[in-house]
């Protein structure tokens, strides 16, 4: 099931001296495969990991992750 949380990590990596997935993974303490899964919206990171990612890029959490709200029937 695709995650309702999307992200701008790939774009932010390229904007930060073309940071590699491995470099980002090392910076936040996750594996490169987990970073790949996050970028592909196959895994939603913990709040702590999300904050660390935002801190690496020097942006707010909302600039990295976007939540697609579910519409509830009225």
């Amino acid at each position: 099931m695709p995650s309702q949380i999307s992200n701008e990590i790939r774009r932010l990596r390229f904007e930060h001296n073309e940071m590699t997935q491995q470099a980002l993974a090392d910076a936040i303490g996750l594996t490169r495969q987990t970073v790949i899964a996050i970028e592909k919206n196959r895994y939603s990171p913990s709040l702590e990991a999300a904050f660390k990612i935002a801190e690496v890029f020097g942006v707010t959490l909302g600039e990295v992750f976007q939540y697609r709200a579910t519409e509830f029937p009225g």
Partner: protein
Amino acid sequence: MNLTFREKSYWASLIIMSAVWVNYFIRVQSHLADGSISRDGSIGLFIGAVVTLVILEIVVHIGLAVTSPKAADQAADERDRIINSKAGNVAGWVLGICVVLIGGFAMFRDVSSVLIANLLLLALVLTQCVDYALALFYYRRGW
């Protein structure tokens, strides 16, 4: 396909475990069928299977570690732990159901202790295989 070290480890363990225990159970089943199994014979087959399993696991995982030393040293991250937990949770249900079924079978049928022991062992092997298979599924497809 970009496999993590843990995925490679799970694949290796799943294949080794399947090969060793399928071979074991085929041999036990043939002995049970012709009535030639004894407790000592069953223990001998079991020890042989365990020794083979341990040796293969050690050799293969040393090989994996040598080819990917950095990945082998890396601690499990949050996704690894979640996958391990989710797969283990389902595997626990599988084990519980198997044990209940075997217990029921043992209570209502006159069966040998060797057969009961091997059915329980089969349940353990099946549980572990489900654990590995589910973890591999979660790594590839998420949840």
